[in-house]
């Protein structure tokens, strides 16, 4: 059982690591993963919600219970959080700016800024110090959470970013109060050693950083909010011939729903009357409206453009395609990519290590200089410049934006791992039917041997009537189109990867490929050259055997999707090898592959062997993606490093896949790879920046440059740098929103 829990109170990646550890220790939990960016925990196992909640609370955090209106509540909560943070920042700035002013102006008198004579530090030292104290109090008051959360985490032996801020600013304030006491006792020179403004400006800058971070974090999940916002709130239901508008929650499966032109389809269903065109772009990314008539499926949140229709509700609530997509994208955004592992490990130990470095640096400088002021400045600067947030945000924010951007384009990426693996793909194996081709083959040639063509087609199509294979259905359609009447077949047998066998009108009819003929010991000599010609034209010839005699060939051709050659070319331009896998004979497969520009052909492959073919490619040391749509593609999709199911495919294929393309357009495959590459590049940039920032910033703050005659970092600049580091990582992640197909 998997549970997704919304967690409150996490301020940095160290918090997420702590909650994750606490959950993983819980009895009955197989695996727990906590994502700082989405503020969600994913718990797999038998632990109850109450046990999970208790563990989270014991770790010092809270569980935000989700209700039916979770989307709205979450939005309201986020908006409130951002508003409160901005108010706190403004209040803090109102006091911190004058605090900084009175602290700095006496030091830069040459600028000749106005300054109250009654606060001259050399004349009124204690009043001056008291004024600074009074100004810092409101700043500390609005930043009280840094202290309550930070010190609590420290007591729980799991310090986080708030702990660093709390320790750093407390040291600054405590030392200043001590000096104030000294001033009160006549040591007026200590007026030069007040650090209230350092603490005040640090808190203000961190609050500014947190506000910007909250806004940016909100923007990373805009895609999912957009999806959630698509769902209509009401539906018009037809009851006893009367139309009645009801809440979407009250719609039941089987209800007849009326949708007028311009209206939104409220739930998934099947059209029972009327004809229209429906804009499905919000689900598939396809801009052209799709024609719908009786019997066609309609999906929640799509827009009815032209005619009025009535449809029967088939799927409601969490079962609709939209809800499934939202769930899939949400899960993906909450998932972790393997590339994040290093950052997660570092985040877990980061804060205690930084505390240690700060203490050691402070002690070392004190031993070296005997200057307590200097040592404490170093101590504060190291604590304040360290930024675990940037590390924690580097990967999940890019994944959120990347998967969100994919969803906007009809590319559903199921998780961080899939996203990461996709960028490494060397070979893409395409299923032929329904993937490279339209999957709607038509009868092109009927070649007979002592039998009427229509008679042969009638017998063959009657045998294929119960087949679900696209080729079989094409033959049936061909017969129906010709107006032939079909006979109910008996003893129908479908032989996977070979063909069908049935009794039709007392005759034993076998329809199948070369392999099946070989197994049935049917001599093919008379038709070999014809078959070869048909195959070279990309047609699929099927042998028809009536009562043990080869009666003819029915050739079926599947039209290639117009976008397939373009997609293959794009993949080649990206340096990706392409392969096509099919049960067709080699000649037919080669003909199709040549038209599409595919490099490698894997022909005459039985459905159950598709996964093996993928495995063989993997054995060559290649990262393999498989693109398919059918149930028989599911094992190969699962075997591939990345399984890509196309939207017109089956639920099983989509379930097995790592990426689902909502449209049946193969150009989305190179788009998915490009998106993956862009996201991974973005993650690497973020990680480089986050690691680089801390690796460079901490030694500078510790005074390494100063040791060699370089500059010393003021804690105020350290706080500014720390705030900017998180914001810069988020801003970089948001650049992915500009990704274009």
């Amino acid at each position: 059982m998997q549970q997704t829990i919304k967690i409150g109170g996490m301020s940095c990646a160290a918090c997420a690591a702590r909650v994750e550890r606490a959950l993983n220790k819980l009895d009955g939990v197989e695996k727990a993963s906590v994502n700082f960016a989405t503020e969600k925990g994913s718990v797999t196992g038998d632990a109850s919600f109450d046990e999970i909640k208790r563990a989270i609370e014991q770790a010092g955090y809270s569980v935000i219970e989700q209700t039916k209106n979770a989307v709205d509540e979450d939005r309201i909560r986020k908006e409130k959080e951002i508003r409160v943070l901005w108010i706190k920042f403004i209040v803090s700035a109102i006091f911190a700016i004058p605090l900084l002013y009175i602290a700095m102006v006496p030091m830069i008198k040459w600028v000749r800024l106005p300054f109250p004579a009654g606060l001259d530090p050399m004349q009124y030292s204690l009043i001056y110090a008291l004024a600074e104290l009074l100004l810092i109090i409101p700043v500390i008051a609005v930043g009280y959470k840094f202290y309550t959360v930070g010190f609590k985490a420290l007591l729980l032996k799991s310090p986080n970013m708030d702990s660093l801020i709390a320790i750093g600013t407390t040291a600054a304030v405590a030392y200043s109060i001590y000096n104030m006491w000294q001033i009160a006792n006549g040591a007026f020179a200590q007026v030069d050693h007040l650090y209230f403004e350092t603490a005040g400006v640090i808190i203000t800058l961190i609050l500014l950083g947190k506000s910007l971070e909250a806004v940016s974090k909100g923007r990373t999940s805009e895609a999912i909010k957009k999806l959630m916002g698509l769902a209509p709130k009401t539906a018009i239901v037809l009851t006893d011939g009367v139309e009645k508008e009801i809440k979407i929650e009250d719609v039941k499966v089987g209800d007849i729903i009326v949708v007028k032109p311009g209206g939104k389809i409220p739930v998934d269903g099947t059209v029972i009357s009327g004809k229209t065109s429906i804009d499905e772009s919000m689900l598939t990314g396809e801009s052209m409206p799709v024609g719908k008539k009786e019997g066609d499926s309609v999906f929640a949140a799509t827009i009815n453009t032209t005619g009025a229709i009535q449809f029967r509700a088939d799927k409601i609530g969490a079962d609709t395609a939209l809800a499934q997509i939202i769930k899939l994208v949400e899960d993906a955004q909450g998932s972790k990519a393997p590339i994040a592992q290093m950052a997660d490990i570092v985040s877990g130990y980061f804060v205690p290590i930084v505390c240690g470095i700060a203490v050691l640096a402070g002690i070392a400088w004190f031993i070296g200089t005997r200057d307590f002021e200097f040592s404490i400045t170093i101590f504060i600067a190291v604590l304040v410049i360290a930024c675990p947030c940037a590390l924690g945000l580097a990967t999940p924010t890019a994944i959120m934006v990347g998967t969100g951007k994919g969803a906007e384009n009809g590319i559903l990426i199921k998780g961080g791992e899939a996203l990461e693996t996709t960028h490494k793909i060397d070979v893409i194996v395409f299923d032929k039917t329904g993937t490279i081709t339209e999957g709607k083959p038509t009868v092109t040639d009927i070649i007979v041997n002592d039998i009427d063509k229509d008679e042969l087609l009638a017998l063959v199509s009657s045998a294929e009537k119960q087949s679900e294979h696209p080729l079989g259905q094409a033959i049936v359609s061909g017969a129906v189109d010709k107006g032939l009447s079909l006979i109910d077949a008996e003893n129908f047998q479908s032989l996977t990867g070979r063909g069908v066998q049935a009794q039709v009108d007392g005759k034993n009819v076998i329809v199948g490929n070369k392999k099946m003929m070989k197994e049935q010991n049917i001599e093919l000599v008379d038709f070999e050259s014809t078959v070869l010609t048909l195959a070279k034209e990309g047609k699929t010839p099927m042998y028809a055997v009536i009562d043990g005699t080869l009666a003819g060939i029915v050739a079926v051709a599947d039209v290639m999707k117009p976008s397939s050659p373009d997609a293959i070319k794009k993949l080649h331009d990206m340096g990706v090898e392409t392969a096509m896998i099919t049960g067709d004979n080699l000649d037919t497969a080669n003909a199709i592959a040549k038209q599409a520009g595919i490099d490698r052909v894997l022909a005459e492959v039985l459905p159950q062997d598709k996964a093996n073919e993928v495995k063989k490619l993997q054995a060559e040391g290649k990262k393999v993606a498989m693109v398919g749509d059918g149930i028989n593609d599911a094992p190969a999709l699962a075997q591939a490093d990345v399984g890509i199911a196309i939207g017109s495919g089956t639920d099983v294929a989509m379930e097995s896949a790592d990426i689902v393309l909502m449209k049946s357009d193969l150009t989305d495959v190179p788009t998915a790879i490009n998106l993956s590459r862009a996201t991974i590049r973005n993650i690497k940039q973020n990680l480089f920046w986050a690691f680089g920032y801390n690796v460079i910033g901490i030694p500078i703050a510790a005074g390494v440059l100063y040791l060699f005659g370089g500059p010393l970092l003021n804690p105020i600049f350290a706080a500014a740098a720390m705030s900017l580091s998180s914001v810069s990582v988020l801003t970089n992640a948001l650049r992915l929103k500009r990704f274009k197909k």
Partner: protein
Amino acid sequence: MKKIMVLAAAVLFAFSLAGCSLDVVGNDALRAYNEIAQSGYNTDKANFEWNGELGGAANFTFDIEPFTAAGLNDVNAVNADINLVVERENIGYHTAMDHYNIDLGDGNLFEWAKDVQTNGTTGENQDKDVVFVLNPEPFIAAGVDPNNVDGWAYAQVSVDINGTPTDIWKFLRPFDIR
């Protein structure tokens, strides 16, 4: 939030309880001056008189003769008899010397040690109980050779100028009570 407000109030209360008058510099400057005044600090070449109370008149005089001997060609170019009413804003604290001072105007000062009892124990800069400080510029402009003024040292003093400790030249006449 409440805890922080309580803490803030407690800090303020603690300072109040300690009986601290907030103008610690002003109060202590008066105490130190009165202590020194009781000991007597006048020298025969310079004198500062003040009753040690804010609002009280003060008079600073010095003997012009050593300057004349050093080349002063116009006695009217300098003011050897300075009068002022001492207000709180005239009193300052000289960090580098650990002295209080009264600003006499035009760069002239009268300084006295913050603590006569400990003065001289914390470094050579503080090793004077009373220092008369004159701005040398008008003297030099009037022909004085600053290195030849009997009884007055021509020396650099660290003062705070626009927030930066700066060494500037002054005529100094220090005096130790002990």
